[in-house]
C-alpha cells in the first residue's frame, strides 16, 4: 500500500500508463481491423505498432537526414521571423505612429489562414528553399511581435519610475527592465510559432521539393499499401519534429527566463 502510494504520487507513472495503454489499444485495434473486421487497406489505416517501429529503426538514417533538412529549413525561417518580430515589437513600443500603422494589420493577419498562403508563396518564389524560409518566417513573425509588444508594455510602472529617478538612459531602461519583462511574452509567442514553422516547412515540401521529410511522406503515400509502414514512420517523424521544436523552446525559456511562476515547484496557477 505504502509503495503503491509512493509510485502514484508522481505524474510520470500515470502518463506512462496512458501511453502504454494507448499503444496496446492501437495494436489490438490494428489486429482487429486486419483479422476480424477485414477492412480494406487495414494496415494503411492503422498499422501494427511494432512494424512501424521496425521501419523507423531500419530507415533511421534516411529519416534522420531528411527530418534534419526539414528542421534546419524551418529553423532558419523561424530565426529570421523571430528576429524581425522582436524588431517590429521594439519599434512599435518606441513609436506610437509605427504601432498605429502596424498593429491593426498584425491583428488582422492573425485571422487570415496564414498556412493557406503557402501555395501562393511557392507560386511566386518557385524556389523551395526560399519559400520554406519565407513561410516559416511569416508564421513566426506575428505571434512573436504581438506577444513581445504586450510584454514590453506590461512593465511595472513603479519600476519605470525608479529607473527614471535613477536617470537611467533609454537603452538602459530597455535592456534592464523592458526586455526582461518581455521575455515571458516572447517565449509564449515562440512556443506557438515553433510547431507552426515546422508545419509550414513540411507543407512546402509536399507541394514539390527535392528534400525533406514531407517529400518522402508524399512519395510513400502514393506508392500505396506496400509502403504503409514507411509512410507512418514519416508521419511520426513529422510529429516528433513539431514536438521537439516546442520542447526546445520550453528548454530555452527555462534557461533564459527561469524566474517565472510556472517554473516554481508549486506551479503558478494557484
Amino acid at each position, binding site marked *: 500500500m505504502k509503495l503503491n502510494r509512493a509510485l*502514484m504520487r508522481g*505524474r510520470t507513472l*500515470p*502518463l506512462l*500508463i*496512458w*501511453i502504454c495503454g*494507448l499503444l496496446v489499444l492501437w495494436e489490438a485495434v490494428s489486429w482487429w481491423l486486419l483479422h476480424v473486421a477485414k477492412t480494406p487497406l487495414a494496415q*494503411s*489505416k492503422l498499422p501494427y505498432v511494432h512494424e512501424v517501429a521496425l521501419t523507423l529503426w531500419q530507415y533511421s538514417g534516411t529519416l534522420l537526414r531528411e527530418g534534419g533538412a526539414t528542421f534546419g529549413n524551418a529553423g532558419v525561417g523561424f530565426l529570421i521571423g523571430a528576429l524581425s518580430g522582436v524588431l517590429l515589437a521594439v519599434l512599435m513600443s518606441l513609436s506610437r*505612429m509605427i504601432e*498605429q*500603422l502596424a*498593429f*491593426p*494589420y498584425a*491583428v*488582422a493577419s*492573425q*485571422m*487570415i*489562414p*496564414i*498556412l*493557406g*498562403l503557402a*501555395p*501562393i508563396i*511557392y*507560386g*511566386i518564389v*518557385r524556389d523551395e528553399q526560399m519559400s520554406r524560409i519565407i513561410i516559416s518566417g511569416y508564421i513566426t513573425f506575428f*505571434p512573436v511581435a*504581438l*506577444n513581445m509588444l*504586450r510584454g514590453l*508594455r506590461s512593465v511595472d510602472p513603479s519600476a519605470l519610475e525608479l529607473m527614471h529617478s535613477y536617470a537611467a538612459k533609454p537603452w538602459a531602461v530597455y535592456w534592464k527592465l523592458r526586455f526582461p519583462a518581455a521575455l515571458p511574452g516572447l517565449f*509564449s*509567442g515562440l512556443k506557438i510559432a515553433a*510547431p507552426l514553422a*515546422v*508545419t509550414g516547412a*513540411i*507543407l512546402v515540401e*509536399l*507541394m514539390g521539393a527535392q528534400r525533406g521529410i*514531407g517529400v518522402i*511522406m508524399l512519395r510513400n*503515400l502514393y506508392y500505396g499499401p506496400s509502403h504503409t509502414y514507411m*509512410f507512418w514512420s514519416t*508521419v511520426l517523424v*513529422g*510529429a516528433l*519534429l*513539431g*514536438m521537439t*521544436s*516546442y520542447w526546445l523552446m520550453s528548454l530555452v525559456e527555462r534557461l533564459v527566463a527561469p524566474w517565472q511562476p510556472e517554473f516554481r515547484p508549486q506551479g503558478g*496557477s*494557484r
Partner: protein
Amino acid sequence: MDINTVREFSSSNNVITTDTDQSRDPWKFLRWLNPGFVLPLLAGALFLLLWELQIFHRIFDLKKYQLPLPSAIAEAMRDNLSLLLSYTGYTLTEAVLGMLIGSGCGFLIALAATAWPRWGGGSLTMVAALNAVPIVALAPIMNLWFGDGIGSRAAIVTATTMAAMAINAYKGMAAVDPLALDLMHSYAAGKRAVFRHLRIQNSLPYVFTALKINATASMIGAIVGEFFFSSRGLGYLLSNSIKVAKMPLGWSCIVLAAIAGVIFYLIVERLEKVFIKWHPSRRA
C-alpha cells in the same frame, strides 16, 4: 496567440485615444479622423496602390502572372462568384463542425482532468502533444480513416482545436477562488455541485478565449486539409488554381478565406458578449 489579450490591448488603446468628452463635442465626426483609425487605412490604401502600379513587381523582379494585380484578383472574384461562395460555405461548414466537436472533446478532457487530477492529468499532456503534431502529418491519416468527404477535414479540425480548449478550460476550472471552494465545502457540496456551480462558471471566460483561438485555427485546418484530397472547398480550389497557373483565382480564394475567418471570429466574439454578460468579470 491570445487574440483575446490582443483585443483587450487594442480596445484599451482606443479608450485612451477616444476618451475625451464626446457628449458635447460638436466635432464628433472628427473622431473618425483620429490617427489610430486613419493611419492604417491610409497605409492599406497606399499598399494596394503600390501593388496596382506594379511597384512591388519592379522591386522584387516579379512578373504579373506570379503576383497578380488587385484589379485582376477582383475580376477573378467577380467572374467566379457563385463557385467561390459555395466553396466558402463548404469550407466554413467543415471548420465549424470540426471546431464544435473538437472544442466539445477538449472541454470533456478538461473536466476529466479536473475531476481526477492524477489520471486525467496524463490525458492533458497527451492532448498538448497532439497539438504539436503538424497538421500536414495528420491530414493524410484522417483521409485514410474518414474518406475524402467532409468527415476527414472535420476530423483534422477536431484534432487541431482540441488542445487549446482542453488546456484553457482546465486552467479556468483549476484556478477557482479558494475561498469559494471553502464555502462550497462548508455547505457540504458534492463534487458534482462544485463543478456545476463553481468550476464550469469559472472556466467560461477561458473557454471563450479558446473558442476565439480555435475560430482561426479551424479555418487553417480545414483549408490545409483540403490541399490533400478534396474535390471541393477553398483549399482545393486554391491549390488547384496555383497548379494550373490561375494566380488571380488563387488569391481570391485567400481573400474569401480571410473574410470568412474574420466573420467566424466576430460571431464567436459576439456570442462571448452574450454569454458572459452575467459573469462577475464583465459586470465591473
